[in-house]
């Protein structure tokens, strides 16, 4: 296999990802029962939470890659971090938008200032700040170092933000396990719903891994092109 050609494992992963997505979608619409109180719109929940999970995952990967870069100064960690942020950002956005779609018919408002949604938005802003930070730096090594530092700081702030927002107010449904009376919009999950939920989580995680791999490859190939350009200019 020639250097730079797409690895076979990646192609397999692509196929698996697409299959999983098809099955998950089918499960969401046909396998999971309709929820008694909220109706059809509740189906958004499966992908909404899965997307939120991937958003957080992106953050986590970026922070870990950040630490790795600071310790090893190897370029590949920088590419991993950047890729994780880019992908995480998209999924966090999906999380926010699906949250709004879900909220509208149920609470008659596009936006609820509840902790999870608020934290997701702030996470999105940190992601954007990360990209803006990188954009303002010429030197690639400095760009990678600053990105790594900010990814770590950003990641550490998220749990604290969530906690403080939660102390502040709550109307977001508390989904898994708790049966709090008066918690608006809560619903218990039947086992079919649980299966669909878990499957969606799995699917989205695989999607994340697949996209991440693609994006890292892209980053590496771009580096190679730059290198070749410089060699030719000499």
């Amino acid at each position: 296999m020639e250097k730079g050609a797409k690895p076979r494992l990646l192609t397999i992963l692509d196929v698996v990802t697409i299959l999983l997505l098809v099955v998950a979608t089918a499960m969401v619409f046909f396998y999971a029962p309709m929820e008694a109180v909220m109706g059809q719109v509740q189906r958004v929940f499966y992908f909404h939470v899965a997307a939120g999970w991937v958003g957080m995952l992106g953050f986590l990967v970026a922070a870990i890659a950040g630490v790795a870069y600071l310790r090893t100064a190897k370029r590949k960690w920088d590419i991993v971090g950047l890729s994780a942020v880019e992908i995480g950002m998209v999924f966090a956005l999906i999380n926010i938008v699906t949250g709004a779609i879900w909220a509208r018919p149920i609470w008659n408002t596009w936006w609820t200032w509840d902790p999870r949604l608020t934290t997701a938005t702030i996470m999105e802003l940190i992601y954007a700040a990360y990209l803006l930070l990188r954009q303002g730096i010429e030197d690639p090594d400095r760009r990678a170092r600053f990105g790594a530092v900010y990814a770590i700081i950003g990641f550490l702030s998220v749990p604290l933000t969530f906690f403080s927002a939660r102390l502040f107010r709550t109307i977001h449904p508390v989904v898994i396990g708790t049966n709090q009376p008066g918690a608006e919009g809560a619903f218990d999950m039947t086992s079919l719903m649980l299966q669909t939920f878990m499957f969606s989580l799995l699917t989205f995680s695989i999607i994340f891994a697949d996209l991440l791999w693609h994006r890292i490859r892209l980053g590496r190939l771009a580096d190679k092109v730059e290198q070749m350009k410089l060699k030719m200019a000499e």
Partner: protein
Amino acid sequence: MASELPMAKDAPKDSPSSGLRGFMRALGAVVWKDLAAELRSRELLTSMLVFSLLVILIFNFALELDAKTRATVTSGVLWVTFAFAGTLGLNRSMAIEKDRGCLDGLLLAPVDRSAIYFGKTVGNLVFMLIVEAIVLPVYSILYNTNLLQPGLIAVILLGSIGFVAVGTLLSTMAVQTRTRDVLLPILLFPVIIPVMIAAVKASSGVLQGIDMAEILPWLNLLLVYDIIFTAVAFMVFDYVVEE
């Protein structure tokens, strides 16, 4: 030829540059330097102060508060003011170092990088506290309310520490980018939200005379934030100044 070079000696144990004494001396020197320069030019404090008072003025007209509503909104207004003025101070403080290459001068010194970080952070904290110490009485007079309560002062101290701990680190980064001043608030504000929320809730709790037990969680949050982020910033500062 290389074999004739003197072998590297370890720094002598009583060298003034090593150890805690050297660290504290460098920290003190950096703080003294910032304070002395500011005392002379007063440009940082003046701009922060004028800015704060202008913001409060704008809030007054924009929010049209009666005395009752004002009680609940005061802490919000105060903290927004402090955040904006604080950002101004952070930017300026670092810009001074960057512009005349003084950051290099600091890095050349035989001291631990973290001494520089703590020196700048303490300096920034002092400036922020000075501005806050002036804004509080002024606000009290303007709105006929007493803000000079020990509980409030404690909250302001904890909140400012968190703000400045992260802010100094991020401003060190921001000042080395193309976009400089503009970038600092973008980097800082999302990350400082826990401080803002906790500080505002704790402040308004104190001002409204709410039971201590309810305010305590907010104070704890501030404390946790301060500790975590001061520690992280201190560990990471090296990477932000080296080349």
